[in-house]
């Protein structure tokens, strides 16, 4: 019968577990217990040294990540003017105010619409483009370089470019659509009714190369033998995609969707520059834009911070659910 040993007294395969007699094989419980007590001092010293060596990094993380988050949470409990030094502790009043604020709910909804559609189409377009660019064809190198262009240009340049293209009175998009007979009258791309569509289209164009790049990198590591074997077995292109490609890229897809979701839900620059929060811009006043406006145009830093904390909370909860739903992909990713 195998003797059961308390895990606490398991021998450690090092010189420290040697008995005074030097017999490494000795497994006496009494001896190990004594030995454990005797060696506590040096162990603690080692632990302390370990903590000391990682402490600069820990401090940096605390200062740069946790402190701003903690300060935002604290700020959200205050009624504070954005630059005037006076402040008043109001507890959860800012959150209660936002709960009743129709502007908040509208912004949340607009943020979900914007991020939902942009993520969906970035992924679809990104995967499709990656599959095409993974094939061998003439000019593939150039095509790969060109397709990354939208992701490389600064947002302000992209927005000015798109606003110019989509202008309803002199934009070239309307000109061509009318010239080929798709529309009869100029389409108000940047008007109140369609500005959301325009900002979604622009964002898909700007950010799908990130998905493409990530997926393409993974596709290039899949063994061609898998496809060859499937072909020999008579699998169609669609079948190969479903049974070989998709299972291979699901790990990276999990990460890409997670990152893009976080980035699109908190996307500020593109949306703000397209609409500037008022006029037609009111119809793309997503949660980050609303948080910015509360902080720097209403000058209510407390409410702005509360909105930021709510955004943070939504992202944390969504991420946890996402990880639970796709546990297997998370492990691969």
């Amino acid at each position, binding site marked *: 019968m195998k003797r059961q040993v308390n895990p606490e007294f398991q021998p450690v395969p090092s010189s420290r577990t040697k008995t005074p007699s030097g017999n490494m094989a000795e497994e006496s419980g009494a001896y190990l217990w004594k030995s454990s007590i005797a060696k506590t001092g040096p162990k603690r010293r080692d632990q302390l040294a370990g903590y000391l060596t990682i402490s600069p990094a820990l401090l940096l993380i605390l200062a740069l990540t946790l402190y701003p988050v903690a300060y935002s949470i604290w700020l959200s409990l205050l009624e504070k003017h954005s630059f005037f030094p006076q402040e008043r502790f109001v507890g959860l009043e800012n959150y209660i105010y936002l709960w009743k604020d129709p502007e908040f709910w509208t912004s949340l909804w607009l943020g979900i619409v914007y991020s939902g559609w942009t993520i969906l189409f970035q992924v679809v377009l990104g995967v499709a483009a990656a599959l095409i660019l993974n094939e061998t064809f003439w000019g593939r190198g150039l095509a790969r370089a060109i397709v990354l262009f939208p992701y490389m240009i600064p947002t302000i340049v992209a927005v000015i470019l798109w606003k110019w293209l989509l202008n309803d009175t002199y934009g070239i998009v309307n000109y061509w659509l009318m010239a080929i007979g798709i529309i009869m009258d*100029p389409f108000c791309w*940047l*008007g109140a009714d369609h500005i959301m569509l325009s900002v979604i289209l622009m964002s898909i164009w700007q950010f799908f190369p990130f998905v493409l790049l990530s997926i393409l990198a993974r596709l290039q590591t899949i063994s061609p033998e898998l496809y060859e074997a499937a072909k020999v077995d008579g699998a169609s292109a669609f079948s190969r995609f479903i049974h070989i490609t998709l299972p291979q890229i699901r790990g990276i897809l999990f990460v890409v969707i997670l990152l893009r979701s976080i980035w699109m839900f908190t996307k500020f620059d593109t949306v703000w520059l397209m609409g500037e929060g008022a006029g037609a811009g009111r119809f793309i006043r997503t949660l980050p834009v609303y948080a910015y406006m509360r902080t720097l145009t209403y000058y209510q830093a407390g409410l702005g911070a509360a909105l930021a904390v709510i955004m943070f909370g939504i992202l944390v909860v969504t991420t946890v659910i996402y990880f639970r739903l796709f546990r297997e992909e998370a492990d691969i990713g």
Partner: protein
Amino acid sequence: MKRWTSILCLGLVLGLISFAWGTEKKVVRIWHTETEPATVAAFQQIINDFEKLRPDITVKQEALAWGDLEAKLTAALAAGAPPDASHGQAVTCASFYAKGLLRDQEDIAMAIGRDNIWEAVRRQCFHDGKYYGIPHSAVTSLLIYRKDIFKTKGLKPPETWDEFIKVAEALMERDKDGRVTRYGLSLPGVGLFINIAVGELTKVNGGRLFDPKTGRPTFTSKEVVEVLDFYKKLSATVLPPGWLGHGYLDTFANLATGKAAMLYQGYGRGAGYIERYAPKEMANSDHFGVLVKPRGPSGKETAAQIDAEPWMIFKNAKYPEEAAEFLKFFFKEENYIKYLHTVPIHLLPTLKSVRNNPTYQANEMVRKWKEWQDMQYRYFDTGQAKPTLIIEWDDLKLPFGLEILGSGIIPDMVTDAVRGMPSAQAAGRAQARAEELITKLGHKRW
């Protein structure tokens, strides 16, 4: 011996460091809203000349978009690093003065001559008998129209809003399929410009935006509701359908390229855009004229908005005194005229002596677009021009103008109305939001 040499060397190094520290140049940061490349270049020339006189000072200019200025200033103030001097709206200056952030500019006023400051702009940032901001220049908004088409159609200048809509409709043009090829009017849909227009329209309609005694918003008053009705009519008849998405420059592009016949929120700098973008034979005041702005159904006289940002100097900035020195240099006539001539019809002089200076008057553009300049002087000289959101000068005593301007409440009110909400309901919604904001800011007095 070795030890003494080391000590000597150390002393020498420390001495050099402290000397370098002591003689480090003072960097004065100036923010302004004149982004025109020619203006930036002229301003830099003034800076260069100033730096020759004061080698201990370096002046760094930053030209910012007009619509971005307030948010950027606020962010800089919140970070504890404001520029030393900056442009600002009159309401911004009033808010900053109320919060005790500004250095007074009595010394600058004395240097350029208190009586030499043009009466029309003296009150832009003048509080408790002291100047807290002296405008860098002055301009009013203009109703710009296609004079050639107007004449061809035999139209009369509109005096009321109803007449204005009729004129705008008459100026519209359609192709054989009934599609509009030229709209009657172009308006910017950007928040700042909607704020400006609502203030101006309320004034020409005889109303107020805030109760002068209590500061309570008066958005639900008959005069403001009529402004919203006017917006609705314009939107339904003579404006391009996507006007809410148009920027300020889009409206000039629309006018210069013949897509629109009138601009209600035009400015003097538009003359430059017309010269650049309109067909050459049309780029003159025979084709693009200015009209007196019509009055509303409850109003008795015309009005226009003043765009005359005062220079503000921040008390808690690093070098406020040096910034004041620079501004005194800026306002010296020989420097100031160089600056004004970069956009002659848009930058009218703040100083009376400059207005009569032959060097200032000897400008081709001033002569060419004199009609535009005269219209602005008319608004100024009759006291019909007021800053953004200001109906009467005492509105500048209200300490929350900056917050109302930035909040988007007024643009949202207009958007609600033109998108179909009854005007009274849109006004009521904005009223409630503005009251709540003022209360939260601690300025409720009703």
